[in-house]
């Protein structure tokens, strides 16, 4: 009756051999293709380095002015702009300016990448139930798989550094972008789509004139979520060599430096608040036409 009390599992020797075979296979794959994969990602690395240098080397008043300008353009709200400027000044005053710039640069690149990859996937998903059924479980895995687990193969392939960090962050931050693009397009009013058809719109015209504009508020919510998820990954990404606000936090955990942890943690929260308020205000402004005047 041992099969009742202990789960009848694969023979230990086989199991070990099985795991070894997979490991060995992957290692060989790494040796054979690692260089090529690294070369493939090298433009991304140059871009990351360029964006980080730009953020750090630009004098701080200009950076603050540009961020304030972007915040104003997106939100048209003096409260949002004032909040952003105060948060940035505080971060600088407490000596975290450079780390913050590194983190913002990383988050921006991650977000741009997630949007560029996520929106087309979301569009294709919205057009075909088959694709949706295929992509959805992959997104589930991406969101629930502990990030440390997929850090292993990424680090094996690319070593530690900015690019593996970027990949880890994008894997985690991409799903809401894809899901909300898909949802937004699927929620577009069928009557309006029918009208577009009746006037002889091509598929591209329907997408450009009807589906994307009407899905835009939902897509903006997706971008907002993607930014928040990317920020949440900053500390984990710092474990594989991504510089920025995550590394002091990591150091604080290792050495139990309470204040260091709190300061850098609050800086991450501060950036999150700026990104969130600005992107939400922009999303709201996109929906101005939804206001009704008549009852």
């Amino acid at each position, binding site marked *: 009756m041992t099969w009742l009390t202990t789960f009848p599992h694969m023979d230990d020797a086989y199991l070990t051999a099985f795991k070894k075979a997979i490991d060995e296979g992957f290692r060989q794959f790494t040796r054979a293709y690692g260089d090529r994969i690294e070369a493939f990602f090298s433009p991304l690395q140059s871009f990351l380095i360029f964006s980080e240098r730009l953020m750090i080397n630009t004098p701080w008043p200009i950076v603050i002015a540009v961020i304030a300008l972007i915040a104003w353009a997106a939100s048209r709200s003096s409260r949002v702009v004032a909040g952003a400027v105060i948060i940035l000044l505080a971060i600088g005053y407490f000596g975290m300016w450079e780390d913050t710039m590194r983190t913002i640069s990383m988050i921006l690149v991650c977000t741009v990448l997630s949007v560029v990859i996520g929106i087309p996937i979301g569009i294709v998903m919205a057009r075909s139930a088959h694709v949706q059924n295929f992509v959805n479980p992959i997104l589930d895995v991406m969101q629930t798989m502990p990030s440390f687990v997929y850090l292993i193969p990424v680090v094996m392939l690319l070593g530690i550094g900015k690019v593996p960090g970027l990949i880890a962050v994008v894997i985690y931050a991409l799903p809401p972008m894809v899901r909300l693009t898909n949802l937004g397009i699927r929620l577009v009013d069928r009557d309006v789509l*029918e009208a577009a058809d*009746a006037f002889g719109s091509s598929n591209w*015209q329907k997408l450009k004139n009807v589906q994307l504009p009407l899905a835009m508020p939902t897509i903006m919510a997706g971008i907002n979520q993607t930014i928040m998820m990317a920020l949440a990954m900053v500390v984990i990404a710092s474990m594989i060599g991504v510089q920025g606000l995550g590394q002091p936090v990591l150091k604080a955990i290792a050495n139990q430096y309470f204040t260091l942890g709190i300061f850098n943690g609050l800086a991450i929260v501060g950036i999150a608040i700026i990104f969130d308020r600005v992107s939400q205000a922009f999303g709201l402004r996109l929906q101005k036409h939804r206001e009704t005047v008549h009852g």
Partner: protein
Amino acid sequence: MADRIGHGIEIRRLYKIFGDRAVDLVDAVKGGMSKSALMEQHSHVLGLKDINISMPGGCIQVIMGLSGSGKSTLIRHINRLIDPTVGEVLVDGVNVVKMNKADLMQFRRHQTAMVFQKFALLPHRTVLDNTVYGLEVQGVSRKRQVENAMLWIERVGLSGFQNRYPNQLSGGMQQRVGLARALTNDAPILLMDEAFSALDPLIRADMQTVLLGLQKEIKKTIVFITHDLDEALRLGERIAILRDGEVIQQGTSQEIVLKPADEYIARFVKEVNRGRVLQVGAVMDPLASTTVPPRIRVSVRITLEETAKMLAQSGEDSLAVIDDDGRMVGVVDIRQIVKAMAPPEPTIVGDLRVTEPTPDLHRRYTYVPEHSQQRVL
């Protein structure tokens, strides 16, 4: 504006069955299987059955029916938003059903324009940008788009509102945008799917007036769907009545009111204001050579209500009726008008009411339950 006289539309032997095995079941339906039997035995829905309608170019063809009668399905076959199971839709001699995807797109861009019950405007675009949509899709230059659109925005009475968003307008104004959008497309065929049904009665009458006024000059082929008989009679030069996916009567408003094909239509017609619908030509006596023609002449096309008014004002006993060419074709007196204006009253014959709308019509018998006889007597 280069307005073309609308193309004729010919619908021939059109069947639409909803379901996966629709094509296999057409023969059963042709063999006489009913809508309910099709549902019970095969779980397929019979949408349209043997539709044959010929719509002359430049006319307003109304298709009337209650919800579920298949009228909205039918209009969507004309620009093939819905594919038929079998049958032909000929527009200007070309079979729409046989068109490939590219041809169909061109056909929709240049031959048809559609107005929808729920307006279906693009909420993120202003009135102007909604109105240019058809031309934008065609790839016309922005300058011409705006020129054309502004013209129609003005014609439907929306001047000054071109920069508003649809949500800032009332329902009636939104549908004016829908109409302007369709007209800006300058297509010979205008499809109107319950276009005025969502509007309140006064605004609806208003929009009907706008449409009739415009049609006098644009002369498009208008297919107008409605569930409202008054609207059908007011707008329709020709009317087809649909029930359970079948055409049960086709004809002019006069024919529908005077000679309803069955009890179902008769029930609708009873509620109609006959004085405003019937024209004097339908109730006059043909001109006999012996009679002395009355002094005052009226056109065959004026309504009974107007005729009655003229009789009352002139003090004459009868009027001469002339056709479109000015020839005298008949005589009408006040008794004929009063008789025709009153809805056909039932007379009691035992348990049955015999209704005679006009002397030459077939008799209709209606069972009257015992308890209601008292009131009728």
